C-alpha cells in the first residue's frame, strides 16, 4: 500500500472530531507528543476519487468558500490541514506504539522489494521508538524507499514526518536527487536545513543509531550522469501548442476539483513560500515529482498542480510538464537540463563537470571550476561574461563604428540657444533581454549573471516593475528575491546589447552629428539650431522603439546637466523638456542627491548642513562651498545648483589607457599558476591593444592580495577584503606584443613578492599609448620579423642568393631612411626608402638604378613578360647581365635598348615598380651596397659609429654582412655576377646570426630607429638574452639611450673583429661563448683550454690557473692570484688575439652581469683588479676598455649611477 504507485495507498485524513480543535493551538516544536487522547482515524477509502471530493475538510472548505466569513482564508485552511496531518501522524504513531496497528506500513515493507532490508533493520518487537527522536523529516520528490515508507519508518522510530515544509518544524529534508539549481541554491531551498538522501534513514536504522547526515547529501545530477544530454539542444522549441496542451491539462486538474476556483492559486502561491524560493523550473520539477510519487494523494496533487498552474501563469517558462507527467525520468532530466540551460554559470560548470566532483556546496572542488585553478580559458570566459567588460569595451567598438560615418562640420551656432538632448534607454540591460519575450512584459525581471547560487551574485539591472518592489542594481540575488519573490532573473544577452546599441547609435547619428556617447545606452546630442528639440527627441524615441522594441527616455534642456536631470524626470519611456524659463524652478525643487557628482557621502554632508534641495544650496555662496567641500567640488555644487554647466557635447575621445583586470575567481596555488594566469591576461591585453591599433609604453600591474586575516569572501569566489598593490614600469618603446607584456608583467609581479595563494585579483593596464592608424598597423605585419623569417624557407639554391640579399637589402634601406627621416606615413616612407636607396647607390656606384623595395616573399623569378622594360633599360650592363643570366640569357635576345637614364621617383608608379622583378632590383642593390659597407670604414675612419650601426642590427645586419663578405669574396674570384647566382649560399637561420647579447647593440643607434624597428629588433634577439634586453630598456628609460659616450669605445673592437674574422666565424665563436659560467667547472675552463690559434696561450694560462685555484672562491681572488703569471710575455702584445680578447671579455662580462644586482662589492673588486693589471698589460687594457661600458650600463640600470673605479 505504501508503494507510491499503488492506487490503494492512503493518506489518512483527519477525523471530523479532531478538526474541531482550535486553529490557534500552540504549535508543537521538536518533541513528540503522544496524543493518546485521539483515536486512530478511520482511513477513508481513497480510490481514484478526485482530491477532496469526500474529504470532510474539503467540504468544510467549500462551505467556507460559500460564506465569506468563517474559514475563508486559505492560509488558515492550510495551517489547519497541516495541523490535522500532524495529528493523524501522531495518532498513527501512538496506535503503532500500542500495537493496534492498522499500520499498513510494516506489512507493506515486507511485501516490498526492500522487504528483506527492512526486516533486517527493524528488529521486531523492540521499542525502536527513539532512534529518530527530535528528527522531523520532509520528503521532497521521488525517493527510495518511498515517501510513505519513510513516513512509516519515521513513525516507527520515533521521528516525525511533515507533509509540508516548514522551517520551524522540519529538521531534515529527504530527497534522492536534486536539480542543480536547488543544490546551488540549497540555502534558499532548504533554509539552512540539512538535505539528506533517504539512505541516511535506512542506514541509521540498520546501525541502530543516528548517523551524521553529512555524508548523505544528494549529488548533483550533472556529476552522477556526466554524459547527460543538455537541454540546450532542444531548448527553445518552446512551441505554443505544448503550452496550450499543458495548460488544458492543468486546467483539467483544477476544474476537477470543482470547489476550488482558479483565483485561489494566487493565495496558494503566497502560502507556499518555500516553493517560491525555487526557481520556476525547480518548482515544476518538484510538482511533477510529487505528482509522480503521490498520484493518489489527491489533496497534495491538487495543491501542487495549483501551484504549478500559478507558476505557469506567471512565467510560462517551460513545456516540460506534460512530457514529464508521462515519463517521470525524462522529466527529471529535462528539468535538470533546463536548470543547466538557464543557469548562466553552466558554461563554466560544463567545462569541469566531468572532472569536478562535488556533491556539496561547501565543497571547494565545486568552486574550482570558476576559479583560475581549473579553467584554462578563465580569462576569456571571464571577460566574455562580464557586464562591466561589455560596457568598458563597448566604447571602443563604438568608435570603430562611428569612425566610418562622415561627420559633417558643425557650423558655428554660437548665437542660437543651445539645445541638448540626453537620451537614455530605459533599464537597457533588462529591456533588451525582454524585448523578444513578450511573456515577460509587465513582470519583475532583473538581469544577473547568475540565477540562484547562494544568491551572492549581484543584480545588474532591474526593470521598473521589479524596482517598484524595491529591487535595485547591486543587490544580491537573495535579497532581491526576498523583496520580490516573483522576480525573474535573466542572463545577459551581450549580442542583443550590441545589436540594440548599434541600432540606437545609428539612429542618433542619423539625427544629429554631435553625439557624445556616454555608454552603450546613453548619449548626449547637441541639436542646437536643428529645429524644435522636442520634436527631434520625439522622433528619435519612436524610431528607437520601432527599431529595437526598447523604450528610451529623453531629457531636453539648454545644457548637459539639465538634460540629464530632465531625463530622470522623464523616465520611464517619456521625455521632458526644461525650457529656458523653467530652469529656475526645475532646479529649485531638485534634491541635492540627484545632482551628478553628488554621491552618498557628499549628500550626507550637505544634509547635515541642512542643504537638501538645490534651492537651499543656492543660498550658500560659492566661497563658502569651496571652503567646505574643496575648490572643485564647491565650484561644481555652486554651478549645478544654478543649473549652470559649461560642458560641451564632445563627440569622441581617444583612449588613454587599455587594460584588463580580473578580481573574481582568482585563486592560485603557487607561482606557476600565477604565471600562467599572467600569460592569459597579457594575451587578453595584447588582443585589446591590437584591436585598438595601439601600443603602450607604461605597464601597470595591479594585484589584490587578501587582507591579513580576511576569510573567504561573502561573494562567491569574490576577492573579498584586499590590500591593493600596484607597480608600473615604462619601456623605452611601445609594444602590444603579448610576450613582451608577459615579461614585463612577470617582472612586476615578482617585484611585489606576494605569495600566490593570497592573490585575489590581477590587473594589467597599459598607458602612454601610441595610436597607430589602421594603415600603419597593417604595415606592422610586414615588420622585421616577417622579413627575417620569410626568405629562408623553401629556398631553391638558385634563388637563394637573391632572396637573402633581398632580405638584407630591405632592412638596410629601411634603416638608412629611418635614421634620416622620421616620416610617419607608411606610403611616404616607402617612397623615401626607395629614393634613398637610389641615392645611396647612385653615390656609390655612380650608376642609375631604379629600385623599389621588393615584395616581402619574392616568388620565383617573375615571367619575363612582367618585367618592366624601362627598368631593365636603365640598368647598368653588368647588372643587366646578371638578370639576363637568371633568365638564361633570354633577356639579351630581346631588342637591345638604349641606355636611357631612368629614375623611379613617382609614388604613383608603384604598380609598375611592383612589376619590376625582385631579382633584378635586389641584385642590383646588393651590388650597389656592398661597397657601401666595405668602403665606409675606409672612407670615414674616424666615424666608427657608422659601421657600428650596422653591427647593431642584430640579425639582419650580421646577415647582411655575412652576405657581403661572401659576395665580396665571390666577386673577387669571378668577374661576372654569374656565380653569385649559381653559387648556392649556405642558408643560415636568422636566430643563429644574432649578436650574443644586448650589450653588443649600439644603443645610440637603436634609439634612432623608429619604435617599430626597435621592437622588432629586440624581438629578434635570442631568447636567452631577451629578458635582459627588456630590463635594459625598461629599467630606466632615460638612462638607456644616453650611453653614447660610453658605447662608442666598444665600437672599434667589434668592427675590427668582424672585419678580420668575418661574421660567420664570429657567430660561431659567440655561440661557443654562451653561458660560459655554466657547469662545474665552468664551461669556459674547457673551452679556453682547448683553444687553438693565436693567443691561445693566454687562455690556457687562465684556464689552468683557474683549475688550480677554483675552490678558493671569487673570481676577484682568482684574478689576484693571476698576478705572477702576468709577467709572462703573452699578455703584452695583442697581435692576432682579438678573438682572445673577446673571449676574456665575455668571461668577465658574463661573470659580472648576474652579480651586479646582488654583489656590487665583487663586481667592484674585479673591475679594480682588471684596471690595476691593465695599466701594465696591453691585453688587459683592451679587455678593460671593452668591459667597462657594458658593465657601467648594468650598474646604471640597477643603481642609477656609475661605478667609481679608483
Amino acid at each position: 500500500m505504501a508503494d507510491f504507485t499503488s492506487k490503494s495507498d492512503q493518506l489518512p485524513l483527519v477525523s471530523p472530531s479532531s478538526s474541531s480543535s482550535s486553529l490557534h493551538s500552540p504549535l508543537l516544536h521538536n518533541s513528540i507528543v503522544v496524543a493518546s487522547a485521539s483515536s486512530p482515524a478511520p482511513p477513508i477509502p481513497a480510490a481514484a476519487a478526485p482530491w477532496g471530493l469526500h474529504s470532510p475538510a474539503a467540504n468544510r472548505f467549500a462551505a467556507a468558500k460559500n460564506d465569506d466569513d468563517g474559514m475563508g482564508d486559505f492560509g488558515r485552511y492550510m495551517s489547519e490541514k497541516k495541523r490535522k496531518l500532524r495529528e493523524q501522524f501522531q495518532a498513527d504513531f501512538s496506535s503503532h506504539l500500542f500495537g493496534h496497528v492498522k499500520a499498513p506500513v510494516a506489512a507493506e515493507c515486507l511485501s516490498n522489494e526492500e522487504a528483506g532490508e527492512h526486516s533486517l533493520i527493524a528488529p521486531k518487537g523492540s521499542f525502536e521508538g527513539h532512534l529518530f527522536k527530535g528528527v522531523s523529516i520532509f520528503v521532497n520528490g521521488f525517493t527510495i524507499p518511498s515517501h510513505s515508507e519513510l513516513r512509516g519508518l519515521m513513525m516507527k522510530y520515533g521521528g516525525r514526518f511533515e507533509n509540508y515544509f516548514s522551517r520551524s518544524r522540519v529538521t531534515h529534508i529527504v530527497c534522492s536527487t536534486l536539480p542543480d539549481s536547488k543544490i546551488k541554491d540549497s540555502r534558499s531551498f532548504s533554509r539552512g536545513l540539512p538535505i539528506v538522501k533517504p539512505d541516511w534513514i535506512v542506514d541509521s536504522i540498520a546501525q541502530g543509531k543516528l548517523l551524521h547526515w553529512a555524508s548523505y547529501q544528494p549529488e548533483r545530477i550533472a556529476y552522477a550522469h556526466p554524459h547527460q544530454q543538455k537541454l540546450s539542444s532542444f531548448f527553445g522549441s518552446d512551441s505554443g501548442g505544448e503550452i496550450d496542451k499543458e495548460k488544458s491539462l492543468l486546467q483539467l486538474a483544477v476544474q476537477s476539483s470543482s470547489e476550488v476556483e482558479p483565483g485561489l492559486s494566487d493565495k496558494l502561491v503566497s502560502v507556499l513560500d518555500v516553493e517560491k524560493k525555487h526557481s520556476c523550473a525547480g518548482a515544476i520539477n518538484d510538482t511533477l515529482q510529487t505528482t509522480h510519487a503521490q498520484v493518489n494523494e489527491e489533496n497534495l496533487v491538487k495543491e501542487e498542480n495549483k501551484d504549478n498552474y500559478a507558476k505557469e501563469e506567471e512565467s510560462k517558462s517551460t513545456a516540460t510538464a506534460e512530457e514529464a507527467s508521462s515519463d517521470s525520468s525524462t522529466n527529471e532530466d529535462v528539468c535538470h537540463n533546463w536548470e543547466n540551460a538557464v543557469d548562466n554559470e553552466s558554461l563554466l560548470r560544463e567545462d569541469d563537470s566531468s572532472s569536478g566532483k562535488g556533491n556539496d556546496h561547501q565543497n571547494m572542488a565545486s568552486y574550482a571550476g570558476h576559479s583560475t585553478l581549473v579553467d584554462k580559458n578563465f580569462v576569456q570566459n571571464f571577460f566574455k561574461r562580464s557586464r562591466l567588460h561589455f560596457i568598458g569595451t563597448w566604447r571602443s567598438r563604438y568608435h570603430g563604428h562611428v569612425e566610418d560615418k562622415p561627420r559633417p562640420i558643425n557650423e558655428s551656432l554660437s548665437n542660437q540657444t543651445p539645445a541638448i538632448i540626453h537620451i537614455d534607454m530605459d533599464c537597457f540591460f533588462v529591456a533588451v533581454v525582454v524585448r523578444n519575450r513578450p511573456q515577460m512584459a509587465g513582470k519583475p525581471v532583473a538581469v544577473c549573471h547568475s540565477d540562484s547560487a547562494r544568491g551572492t551574485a549581484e543584480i545588474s539591472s532591474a526593470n521598473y516593475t521589479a524596482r517598484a518592489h524595491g529591487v535595485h542594481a547591486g543587490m544580491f540575488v537573495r535579497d532581491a528575491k526576498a523583496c520580490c519573490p516573483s522576480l525573474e532573473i535573466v542572463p545577459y544577452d551581450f549580442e542583443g546589447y550590441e545589436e540594440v546599441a548599434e541600432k540606437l547609435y545609428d539612429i542618433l547619428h542619423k539625427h544629429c552629428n554631435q553625439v557624445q556617447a556616454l555608454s552603450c545606452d546613453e548619449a548626449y546630442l547637441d541639436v542646437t539650431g536643428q529645429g524644435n528639440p522636442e520634436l527631434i527627441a520625439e522622433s528619435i524615441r519612436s524610431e528607437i522603439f520601432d527599431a529595437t522594441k526598447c523604450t528610451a527616455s529623453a531629457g531636453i534642456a539648454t545644457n548637459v546637466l539639465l538634460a540629464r536631470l530632465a531625463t530622470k524626470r522623464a523616465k520611464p519611456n517619456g521625455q521632458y523638456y526644461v525650457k529656458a524659463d523653467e530652469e529656475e524652478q526645475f532646479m529649485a525643487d531638485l534634491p541635492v542627491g540627484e545632482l551628478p557628482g553628488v554621491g552618498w557621502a557628499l549628500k550626507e554632508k550637505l544634509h547635515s548642513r541642512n542643504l537638501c534641495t538645490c534651492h537651499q544650496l543656492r543660498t550658500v555662496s560659492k566661497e563658502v562651498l569651496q571652503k567646505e567641500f574643496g575648490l572643485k567640488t564647491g565650484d561644481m555644487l555652486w554651478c549645478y545648483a544654478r543649473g549652470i554647466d559649461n560642458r560641451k557635447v564632445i563627440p569622441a575621445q581617444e583612449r588613454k589607457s587599455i587594460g584588463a583586470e580580473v578580481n573574481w575567481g582568482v585563486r592560485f596555488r603557487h607561482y606557476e599558476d600565477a604565471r600562467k594566469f599572467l600569460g592569459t591576461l597579457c594575451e587578453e591585453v595584447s588582443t585589446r591593444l591590437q584591436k585598438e591599433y595601439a601600443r603602450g609604453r607604461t605597464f601597470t600591474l595591479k594585484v589584490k592580495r587578501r587582507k591579513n586575516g580576511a576569510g573567504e569572501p561573502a561573494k562567491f569566489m569574490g576577492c573579498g577584503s584586499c590590500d591593493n598593490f600596484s607597480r608600473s614600469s615604462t619601456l623605452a618603446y611601445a609594444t602590444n606584443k603579448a610576450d613582451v607584456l608577459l615579461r614585463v608583467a612577470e617582472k612586476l609581479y615578482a617585484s611585489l613578492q606576494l605569495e600566490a595563494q593570497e592573490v585575489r585579483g590581477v590587473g594589467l593596464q597599459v598607458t602612454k599609448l601610441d595610436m597607430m592608424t589602421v594603415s600603419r598597423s597593417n604595415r606592422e605585419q610586414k615588420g622585421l620579423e616577417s622579413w627575417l623569417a620569410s626568405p629562408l624557407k623553401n629556398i631553391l639554391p638558385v634563388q637563394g642568393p637573391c632572396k637573402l640579399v633581398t632580405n638584407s637589402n630591405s632592412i638596410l634601406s629601411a634603416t638608412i631612411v629611418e635614421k634620416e627621416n622620421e616620416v610617419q606615413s607608411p606610403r611616404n616612407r616607402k617612397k623615401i626608402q626607395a629614393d634613398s636607396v637610389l641615392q645611396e647607390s647612385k653615390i656609390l656606384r655612380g650608376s642609375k638604378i631604379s629600385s623599389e623595395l621588393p615584395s616581402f616573399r619574392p616568388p620565383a623569378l617573375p615571367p619575363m613578360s612582367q618585367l618592366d622594360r624601362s627598368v631593365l633599360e636603365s640598368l647598368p650592363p653588368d647588372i643587366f647581365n646578371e638578370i639576363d643570366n637568371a633568365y638564361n640569357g633570354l633577356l639579351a635576345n630581346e631588342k637591345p635598348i638604349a641606355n636611357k637614364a631612368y629614375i623611379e621617383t613617382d609614388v604613383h608608379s608603384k604598380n609598375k615598380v611592383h612589376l619590376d622583378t625582385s631579382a633584378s632590383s635586389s641584385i642590383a642593390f646588393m651590388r650597389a651596397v656592398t661597397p657601401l659597407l666595405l668602403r665606409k670604414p675606409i672612407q670615414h675612419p674616424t666615424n666608427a659609429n657608422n659601421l657600428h650601426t650596422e653591427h647593431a642590427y642584430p640579425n639582419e645586419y650580421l646577415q647582411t654582412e655575412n652576405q657581403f663578405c661572401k659576395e665580396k669574396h665571390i666577386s673577387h674570384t669571378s668577374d661576372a655576377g654569374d656565380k653569385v647566382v649559381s653559387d648556392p649560399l649556405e642558408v643560415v637561420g636568422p636566430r643563429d646570426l644574432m649578436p650574443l647579447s644586448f650589450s653588443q647593440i649600439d644603443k645610440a643607434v637603436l634609439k634612432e630607429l623608429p619604435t617599430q624597428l626597435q621592437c622588432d629588433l629586440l624581438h629578434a634577439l635570442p631568447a636567452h638574452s631577451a629578458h635582459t634586453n627588456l630590463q635594459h630598456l625598461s629599467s630606466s628609460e632615460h638612462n638607456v639611450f644616453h650611453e653614447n659616450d660610453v658605447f662608442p669605445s666598444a665600437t672599434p673592437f667589434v668592427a675590427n673583429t668582424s672585419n678580420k674574422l668575418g661574421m660567420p666565424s664570429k657567430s660561431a665563436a659567440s655561440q661557443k661563448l654562451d653561458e660560459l659560467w655554466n657547469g662545474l667547472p665552468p664551461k669556459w675552463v674547457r673551452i679556453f683550454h682547448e683553444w687553438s690559434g693565436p693567443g691561445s696561450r693566454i687562455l690556457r694560462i687562465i684556464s689552468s690557473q683557474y683549475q688550480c685555484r677554483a675552490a678558493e672562491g671569487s673570481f676577484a681572488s682568482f684574478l689576484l692570484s693571476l698576478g705572477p703569471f702576468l709577467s709572462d710575455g703573452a699578455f703584452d702584445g695583442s697581435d692576432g688575439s682579438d678573438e682572445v680578447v673577446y673571449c676574456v671579455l665575455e668571461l668577465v662580462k658574463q661573470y659580472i652581469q648576474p652579480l651586479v644586482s646582488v654583489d656590487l662589492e665583487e663586481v667592484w673588486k674585479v673591475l679594480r683588479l682588471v684596471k690595476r693589471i691593465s695599466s701594465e698589460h696591453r691585453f688587459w687594457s683592451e679587455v678593460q676598455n671593452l668591459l667597462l661600458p657594458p658593465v657601467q650600463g648594468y650598474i646604471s640600470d640597477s643603481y642609477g649611477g656609475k661605478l667609481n673605479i679608483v
Partner: protein
Amino acid sequence: MKCSGLVEKRRGDMEQNQKPSLGEITDLVCEFLEVAIHLVLSVRGLYPAEFFERRRHFNVPVQWARHPELREYVHSAVTNLHSWIQQGIVEKVAIVILDNARAPQERFIFKLQVDKLYSKDFPISELEYALRAFYLKIPVSEPLLRPLPPDCTWEIVAYSKQLPGDGSSKGHFWVPADNGPWENPPHITPIKSMKSEPLVMQLYVEHPSVAEISVFRDV
C-alpha cells in the same frame, strides 16, 4: 647595554628554534641597521669623537652614540621601518649627508632585497656572521670617501618601492624626502655586499658626479 641585550634574547630564541621566521630576520636586520647607522655617523665624523662610546654588537666593537635623542631618532626610524622591510617594500635605506645648504653630499645606501620565500632551515647565525663583516668594513671605508665640507647634517631616508598602503600607524612618522636624486648619475663606491637566502644587502656610497659638484660651486 641595550643592543647586546637584544642579541642575547634572540640567541635564546634561536636555540629553541632553528627556523627563523621572516620577523626574526627582520629584527636582526633592523638591529643591524641601527648599529650601522651609528657607526657611519662616527666614521664620517659628523659628531665629535667623544660623542660615541665603544660597544660590542655581534661580538664586534662598534661605535655607539651617547646622546639619548640621537639614539632615539635612529632607533625610532629603524623600528618604524620594520614592517615595511618585512613586507619587502623598502628598497633602500640611506644615510644622506647634507651640506649646510642642505644639498646632499654623500649617501650611504643599504640596498635591501628581502626574499620571503627562503627555505626555512636557513640558520640565522649565518646572517649574523655576514652582517658582522659590514661592521668591520665600514670603519675602513674612509679612504674611499671624499672629505666632507664642514657643518654637515644628515638624515635617514628610506626608498620604498611603493607607497606603503597598509595604513599602519607607523606610516605617519615618515614624510616624503625633499631632496631627490642628483641631476647626473652619481658615482658609486661599493663598500660591502652580502648575499644570503632571505636577504641580499649591499652597502655602497653615492657621491655626486663631478659635473654636479661644479654646478654647486658655480651656485
